[in-house]
């Protein structure tokens, strides 16, 4: 039986754990899940590459460029939304 797809909240929880472990700026800051990780400098371009590989390994989805560069894919909640949509096959196509 296929395990149920994770919810947005579960993905957000897991992503937050990963990001806090991976990026020191994330650990020291009390950042909400709706905070723009790029504007705040928490995640740089190299960090994004690491995050993308983590998402690919953990959830089996590749993040397309149009999702990566979307306004939603800037914070933990938005990343989680994007991943759940991709898992459901409902992400916007190019």
């Amino acid at each position: 039986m296929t395990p149920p797809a994770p919810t947005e909240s579960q993905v957000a929880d897991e992503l937050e754990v990963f990001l806090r472990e991976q990026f020191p700026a994330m650990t020291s800051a009390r950042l909400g899940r709706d905070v723009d990780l790029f504007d705040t400098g928490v995640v740089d371009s190299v960090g994004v590459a690491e995050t993308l590989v983590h998402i690919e390994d953990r959830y089996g989805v590749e993040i397309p460029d149009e999702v990566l560069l979307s306004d939603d894919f800037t914070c933990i909640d938005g990343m989680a939304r994007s991943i759940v949509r991709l898992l459901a096959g409902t992400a916007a196509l190019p």
Partner: protein
Amino acid sequence: MVPTFELIGSTDPCFGWDGTTLAQSLATHRPEATEGAFAGLVHESDRTWLARDPLGLGKLFWATADGVVELANRPERLTARGHQLEQCAALPADTVVSYSHDQGSPAVDPVAVPAVGGQLPSAEPVERIATRIRDAVTDYVAAVLAARPGPAVVCLSGGLDSSSVAALVREHRDDVVAVTFDLARPRSRRRSDDFSAAEAAARQLGLTLVPAFHTPERLFELLDTVLVAGVDWRDFNVHAGLVNAALAVTIAEVLGPQASAATVFTGDLVNELLADYHSETYRGRTYYRLPRLPLPRLRAALVRGLATSHREIGVFGELGLSVVQPYAVARDDFLRLPESVLGPGPGKSRLYRAMFGDRLPRSSYDRPKTRAQTGSENGDRGVLAVCADAGLDERQLARRFARLHGTDDVAVLTRFLRGGRYRTAIPRGEHDPTSTH
């Protein structure tokens, strides 16, 4: 419905390669199964198509105004016409888009064999793959030189990548000019270790070496050119772009009116294809940090990153020179190499021995990697140090890049380039989300 396209400025030079034929124009060679470097637009009687090479070395950006898709090989040409940077998209790498007069939506196809996870399956021994890489690069260099009788120039650092390309070019031409970069040190006659490595390689290959000595001040004069034509503000790419710009200036000075007919060869791309980069430390700070990933995944990320930044073709092109990166045509075989060859360890020398044996200078095997932008271990400063000492950090570079593209809002940059990828999209005409006017 075929959108109306308008090309703003020139496109990047076309150096496509299908294994036997050099394509210098997309109008005469279909891009299917073509490697090398190209990005452009072709109108035919029954269709119009756009294409970008498998590695994304050629660049093609676009934005829509009043239903017209405006295309350019750098976004600054689009922002100069009133588009906002975040509304400019790149045509995806490894893509052919065909707009037929009979069909409603464009057909989108890859150019090359898809490399799943950045790798192609292979159980072949390294030596056999190495032979194919060498043969492909050899044939490509021969074809480029046969098609372009103008001066042949090689950017030579003395490492294995550039020395191997220099050796191949030298086999076809007696009058090859090798150019190497070093910072000008007016009060010292001593040269950097990298310069000495290039001298040794040039001597052993029988090449005339032209030094490109540039002061920091002269380099900084090239910064805006590098930011605009290099389409990037990240420090590694800007520093590499500054070295390329300095080389290009020197080549143009040496060749004079012949420069526009010259072909400049480099050993680029192998660092990405073998993931043999490493970070650098200067004054206690780490620069050029790499993603913390297993080597095959790191290589996949680096190779994918080639589609972003125009530090080679764009920068040389802006300064009037056509640059060729021969290792582009061996992409698939590099992606078949096993993990044992990847990374900064001894695998690279093993691969080069299998490819070229004693045809390469011994000094290059002794010093397999040089990096002109970082300086030498003996304390000589490189471009990284010069920029860091001048306070030109990535934040400053981002601000300057934004301003050159018509905005003071640095936040928009992450909507244009994020995680080593440009915003990409396929132009579809009047309903494009990028439509601005």
